């Protein structure tokens, strides 16, 4: 698709900002997202399905979210599309996580 991901030659994307002594991950949730994607058996999805799920992100969202947020979006959408869980189950997990966080706070 002629999507926002196809960035080769685009102007106006701003300067490249290399980070000095960049860590491999910037937050613990990035570690978890990376590991989750890697741990899911390869028979569930292939790399092109993975890439295309990210390419289908809404363009402004694609540009305003970070790399591992793309992966998180991809995990949620692709696993539902692949029938691994239902949207309702994901929403239940969100509210459980929220109450757990409130309880421990």
């Amino acid at each position, binding site marked *: 698709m*002629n*999507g*926002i991901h196809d960035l080769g030659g685009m*102007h*106006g994307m701003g300067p490249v900002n290399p980070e000095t002594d960049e860590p491999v991950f910037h937050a613990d949730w990035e570690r978890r997202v990376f590991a989750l994607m890697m741990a899911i058996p390869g028979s569930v999805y292939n790399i092109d399905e993975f890439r295309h799920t990210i390419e289908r992100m809404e363009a*402004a969202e694609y540009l305003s979210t970070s790399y591992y947020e793309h992966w998180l979006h991809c995990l949620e959408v692709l696993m539902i599309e692949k029938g691994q869980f239902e949207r309702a189950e994901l929403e239940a997990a969100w509210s459980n996580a929220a109450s757990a966080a409130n309880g421990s706070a």
Partner: protein
Amino acid sequence: MNGIHDMGGMHGMGPINPEIDEPVFHADWERRMFALWTAAFAAGMYNDNEFRFAIESRSAEEYLSESYYQHWLVCMEKVLIDKGQFTRADLEAVWANAPGTGASGGGAGSGQALPADQVIPVFMGGASARIDADVAPKFKAGDAVVARNINPAGHTRLPRYLRGKGGTIEKDHGVFGFPDSMAHGEGETPQHVYCVRFDAREVWGESAPARDSFYVDMWDDYLDPA
């Protein structure tokens, strides 16, 4: 520039959502914004190519997440500061006092404000962008041309999806100023503008409908003989 505004052929931009009984403006600030912009434009404070380039220069993320009149607001602020009509400090002072008198004073003020009684004659009269200059055309109707593969970082009205594609001159529209120079204070560079016909298959490949086509206005400097 190969910016986010150059959307011809992009996928993934979502559905077209027409609004039933859409009003002309959706908020009072939009009304004010439209009037401010047109009044300042009529007063000659900037040309439309300069303003377009300011919009194109928003970051892609801003461009996609801001509304249309938000583009106008932030770009009008920027263009008027760039043109010396007021300073960033003037603007910030107004923000700090908002809603204040709006009179920050001290601007360069090169433009003449448009009086209210001139609105009807000015806007009903309009002003053609044609230039009365005796410039020879490079092409004539029927000529086969190729849109140049240019990729300037500045303003251009040659969309990416047509670069390198072959078409046919349908009509010579006459002489106009050249956006690529007018956006950057480099003069009018007057030249002919043509209506050029491009086959859909030339543009998008064999999967496009066989008889469909695009008619796009192109300046002499955008074209080579095929």
